[in-house]
C-alpha cells in the first residue's frame, strides 16, 4: 500500500486508531489493567528505547529479519522465475511446495531448536521458510501476466531464454515481486518474534516480551513491544514503497484514481 502522499491524512488514520484504543481501555469497555492505554504504552516504549539492552534486543530482531528477508529474496525470485516460466519444472515441484507451505513455522520451532540450537540460526531459518512463499508466488503470478507481445518482441530480436527472464520477465514482474517482498517482511518479522517468543534463548524483542509477560501483568512492556513491532514494519514498508516509487516510475498509474 503506497501513495499516501499527505502526511497529515495518514496521521489522522493512525491517531484515530490510537484514540479508539485509548478510549476503549480508559472506559471499562476492555480490561484497562490488561490492555493498557496508549498514553501509558507509548511513554513506556520511549523509556525502553533509552535502555541499551532493549535497543540491543530490537537490533537483534531487526538484523535477523533483514537477513532472513534477503535470503528469502535470493532464493524465491530465481525460483519463481524458473517455476513461472518452465511448466514441467513447475508441475514437478509445486506438489511438494503445496505440501510444505501450510506447515507453520511455529510447529517446527521445537524441531528447529533441536537441530539448530538456540542461536539466531533457528529464527532466521524459520523466517526464511515463512517469507519465501509470498515472493515466490508473486513472482510466478507476475510472470503469467507478462504481456505475450513483450515476450514475442524480445524473442524476435534474438533474446535467449535467460535474457527473456532477466530483461523482460523480471522487469515487468518487478513491481508485483516487490509487493511480495513487502508481505514477506511482515511475515519474517512475525516469525522471528514468534520464535523468540516461543523458544527463547536468543536476545530479541520477542524475548523481551516473553520475559515481561512471565512475571505478572507487565502489559506496558508487552504492548510497547507490540507497538514497536508495528512501527518497525511500518517503517520498513515505507522504505520499500519509496524504493518502489523510485524504481518503478514507469508503472505509476497514468490516470488518476478517482
Amino acid at each position: 500500500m503506497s501513495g499516501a502522499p499527505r502526511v497529515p491524512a495518514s496521521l489522522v488514520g493512525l491517531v484515530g486508531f490510537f484514540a479508539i484504543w485509548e478510549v476503549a481501555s480508559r472506559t471499562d469497555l476492555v480490561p484497562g489493567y490488561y490492555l493498557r492505554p496508549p498514553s501509558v504504552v507509548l511513554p513506556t516504549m520511549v523509556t525502553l528505547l533509552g535502555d541499551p539492552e532493549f535497543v540491543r534486543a530490537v537490533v537483534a530482531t531487526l538484523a535477523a529479519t533483514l537477513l532472513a528477508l534477503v535470503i528469502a529474496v535470493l532464493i524465491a525470485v530465481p525460483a519463481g522465475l524458473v517455476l513461472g516460466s518452465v511448466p514441467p519444472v513447475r508441475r514437478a515441484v509445486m506438489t511438494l511446495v503445496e505440501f510444505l507451505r501450510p506447515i507453520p513455522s511455529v510447529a517446527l520451532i521445537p524441531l528447529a531448536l533441536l537441530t539448530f540450537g538456540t542461536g539466531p540460526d533457528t529464527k532466521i531459518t524459520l523466517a526464511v521458510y515463512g517469507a519465501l512463499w509470498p515472493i515466490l508466488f508473486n513472482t510466478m503470478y507476475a510472470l503469467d501476466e507478462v504481456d505475450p507481445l513483450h515476450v514475442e518482441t524480445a524473442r524476435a530480436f534474438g533474446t535467449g531464454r535467460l535474457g527473456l527472464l532477466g530483461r523482460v520477465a523480471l522487469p515487468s514482474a518487478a513491481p508485483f515481486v516487490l509487493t511480495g517482498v513487502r508481505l514477506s517482511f511482515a511475515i519474517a518479522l512475525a516469525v522471528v518474534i514468534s520464535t523468540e517468543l516461543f523458544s527463547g534463548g536468543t536476545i530479541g524483542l520477542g524475548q523481551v516480551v516473553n520475559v515481561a509477560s512471565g512475571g505478572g501483568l507487565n502489559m506496558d512492556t508487552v504492548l510497547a513491544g507490540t507497538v514497536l513491532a508495528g512501527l518497525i514494519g511500518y517503517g520498513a514498508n515505507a522504505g520499500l514503497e519509496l524504493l518502489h516509487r523510485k524504481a518503478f516510475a514507469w508503472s505509476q498509474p497514468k490516470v488518476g484514481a478517482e
Partner: protein
Amino acid sequence: MNRVTRTAQRWVVFAVAVGLWELVTQLAKAAEAEKSFFFPPPSEIALTAKDLWFSSAFGDHIVPGISRMLGGWALAGVIGIALGILLGRSRRAMAYLGAVFNFLRSIPPPLLVPFFVAAVGPTNMQFPTIVFGAIWPVLLNTVDGARGVDATKVETARVFRLSRAQWTFGVVLPSALPKVFAGLRLSLSIALILMVISELIGSANGIGNQLVRAQRDYEPTAMWAWIVLLGVLGYLFNTLLLVLERRALAWQPRHSLETQALATGG
C-alpha cells in the same frame, strides 16, 4: 502430453522427497543416532496418522479446526478484496487508512493476542486471529491489481460512464483477478498456519491444539502426523482453489496452447 505423464511429472519429485526422507530417517534410526527419536520415518508416521485422523479426533479436532480456518479465510478474502479495491482506486482512502493497515499488518500475530483477548476474550479469539492474519496478502495484492488497471481501460470505462458496480465488478476486479488469486493462495496457507497458532491459546480442540499436545507429550510420530495433515489439507484446498482460478481466469491468453508454448520458448 497425455494425462499419465503429466500426473507422473506432478508426483515424481514429491515421491522422491518422501523416499529420501524414509531412507535418511531409517538409517538414522538404525544407527541410533541422537535425536532420531524426534524424526521418525514417514512409514511410521503414516501408520500413526491413519489411526489418529480417522479416530474420534476427526469430529473433535479436525472438523472444528478446518471450519474455523475455511470460515476465517473466506471472510479474510471478502474483506481483503473489498478493502483492496477501495484502497487501490481511491487516493483518499489510501491516505487515511494506508498507514493504519501497514502498522497493524506488521504486528506479529502472537503479539496481537492482548488486543484480541481484550476484545473477544481468550477462548473466542481463534476466528478473528485467522481473519486478521489472512487478510494481508489478499489486500496488498488486490491493491496492486486494482492500481494496475490499464490506463486505456480506465479511460474507456469513464467515457462510457459505467456505473460504480460495473466499474468495480466489470473492470477493476477482473483486471486485478490474477493478482487476487495469488493473494488468495497465500492467504489460504496463512489461514492454516494461524489456525494452528490460534489454537494454542484458549482452545479446547483443533489440529493445532493436538499438534502442540503431541509435541509436549514427546509423541513425535503423532506430532508429525498432525504436521503431515496440515500439508495434506493445504494441498487439497490449494488444488480446489486452483480449479476455481482456472475457471475464473479462463479468458487469459496464457491458457491458450499457443502462448503456453511461447512462454516456454518452444
